[in-house]
């Protein structure tokens, strides 16, 4: 009896510090920002926030084309980068499935891009992509091709951001998928071999359906992560040229922190949060089933 009671106390004793910390440091700021989102507060000129109801939300959603263009850029970016990463990752993982010697070496090697500070990645690429003296354009010129305005052309710059993100995260897709392939049961493949299935049939009918749940999970994870895109924009293009690469998180940062428009910034944070939360809920409900 005493033992059971102590058990009841002890489990909360262990859990509470963590819950308390998260409530104070995560839930409290969020509710604070929700309250602020219904106010007007230009912190550079106003002492205190001024209640304005839903004006901020109305302004952002109906009167702010820049918000919509930032959202549109972010959505296009997320879609493209995740599709390309999944394509290359899946292709490589399938190609090397069963045939991969020195995989521990490659595993460590491929971890490097994603372990680097994203801001360092941004600046390394910014150096290489410099329109006049960057190594990439110099190399292109050497082999007789035209220079590309990687960061200064409205058309090319969004794809440059996608390219760098693909560089950073494709190895991640590859490693997860490769591990998933290796964990598949051997017997099914034997059966397929006995039945004389072709390589492509094996992939389409066996491998792909078996790893599909993992693909869904990592695609969701990458989508949520890709929405957070900030450092690459900050480092490589600073949202330019002509706001062509302004991601939602960067616009939120400009509005709320740089321009100190705390009310509008909070409202935009919440819209952003709700978008990501929608995708997160799908992922969370999948993860909930797994534990």
């Amino acid at each position, binding site marked *: 009896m005493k033992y059971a009671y102590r058990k009841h106390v002890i489990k909360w004793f*262990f859990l509470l510090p963590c819950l308390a910390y998260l409530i104070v440091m995560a839930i409290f700021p969020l509710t604070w920002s929700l309250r602020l989102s219904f106010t007007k507060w230009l912190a550079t000129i106003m002492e205190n926030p001024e209640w304005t109801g839903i004006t901020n939300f109305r302004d952002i959603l109906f009167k702010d084309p820049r918000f919509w263009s930032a959202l549109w850029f972010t959505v296009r970016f997320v879609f493209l980068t995740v599709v390309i990463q999944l394509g290359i990752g899946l292709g490589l993982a399938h190609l090397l499935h069963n045939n991969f010697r020195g995989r521990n070496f490659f595993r460590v090697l491929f971890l490097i891009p994603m372990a680097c500070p994203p801001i*360092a990645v941004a600046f390394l690429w910014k150096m290489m992509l410099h329109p006049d003296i960057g190594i990439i354009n110099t190399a292109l010129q050497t082999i007789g091709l035209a220079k590309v305005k990687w960061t200064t052309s409205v058309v090319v710059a969004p794809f440059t951001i996608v390219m760098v993100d693909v560089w950073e995260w494709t190895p991640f897709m590859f490693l997860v998928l490769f591990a998933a392939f290796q964990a598949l049961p051997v017997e099914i493949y034997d059966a397929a071999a006995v039945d004389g299935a072709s390589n492509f049939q094996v992939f389409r009918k066996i491998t792909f359906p078996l790893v599909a749940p993992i693909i869904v999970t990592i695609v969701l994870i990458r989508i949520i992560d890709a929405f957070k895109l900030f*450092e690459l924009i900050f480092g490589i293009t600073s949202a330019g040229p002509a706001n062509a690469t302004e991601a939602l998180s960067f616009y939120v940062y400009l509005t709320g922190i740089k321009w100190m428009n705390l009310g509008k910034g909070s409202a935009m944070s919440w819209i952003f949060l709700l978008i990501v939360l929608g995708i997160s809920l799908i992922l969370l409900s999948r993860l909930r089933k797994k534990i």
Partner: protein
Amino acid sequence: MDNQRNERKNLRRQRRIELGTQKRSPLGWTILWLIMVVFTIWTMFPIFWAVITSFKHTGDAFNPTFIPWVQFKPTLQGWHFVFITAGERTLRSLKNSILIASCSSALVLLLGAFAGYSLGRFVFRGWKNKDIAVWILSNRMFPPVAVVIPYFLFMRTLRLLDNPLAIIMAHTVLNLPLGVWLMMDFFRDLPRDLEDAAFIDGCSHLGAFFRIALPLAAPGLVAVYVLSFIFSWNEFIFVLVLGFHKATTIPILIAGALTSKGLEFWKVASISLIGIIPVVILTTFVSKFLVRGLTFGALKE
């Protein structure tokens, strides 16, 4: 254990033979390796280029030359600038980075190990273990930029702006969900019997936790600490908003390296490498866990 592994290995070899993949034609092998080599070069080139550039003279930095001593004369100009000329700022950032990353990771470890043990060992009713764990994880999914405004105000009220403590607190929130999930997994995989035996011998719950469960989970503790160290080291937005002058870290130093004035690539390269080299070294120690960490602890590699 070893037997099982051998068996798996054999089965895999058999599968290769039966699928005919082992008897790939020489052309097939060549293409396979070509793809692998191209992908490796693509992945490694930016890092390699940064290393090369950091040893170049101002004039050489723009040339497509690759081999030191043969194609260009290496110099320590960049490194001299970073550690001597601008040494004070670099060392301050380095000190802050280490302080913030190690303190916030310690806090993550402490809170995460407690909560992970609680969720991995005990049964919660009503609000079930699953619900609590998922709620904790949901905190990791918020875009950081969406909470920086209240953080900024919060820290201003507490007069902690430009104080490493504010960043430590922020990074702890960021990494805590990961810590809880990884520790939960580790404790769940540990056998209960040892703790039960300890109870029978009259050990208290706290005693069992500290003397038995925690030492057994040591590999997990190391993984959580190193992972959250890496993520805190790399984090940029919170430091950008909460620290201006005194509490800057390496990522901020990198962001300030490319001034409008100069195309001093050697400087950018060497400062970036200061940020990259420590995490790459740490990564090799936790290579098995990094992917797990990046998937919020959801996928085991």
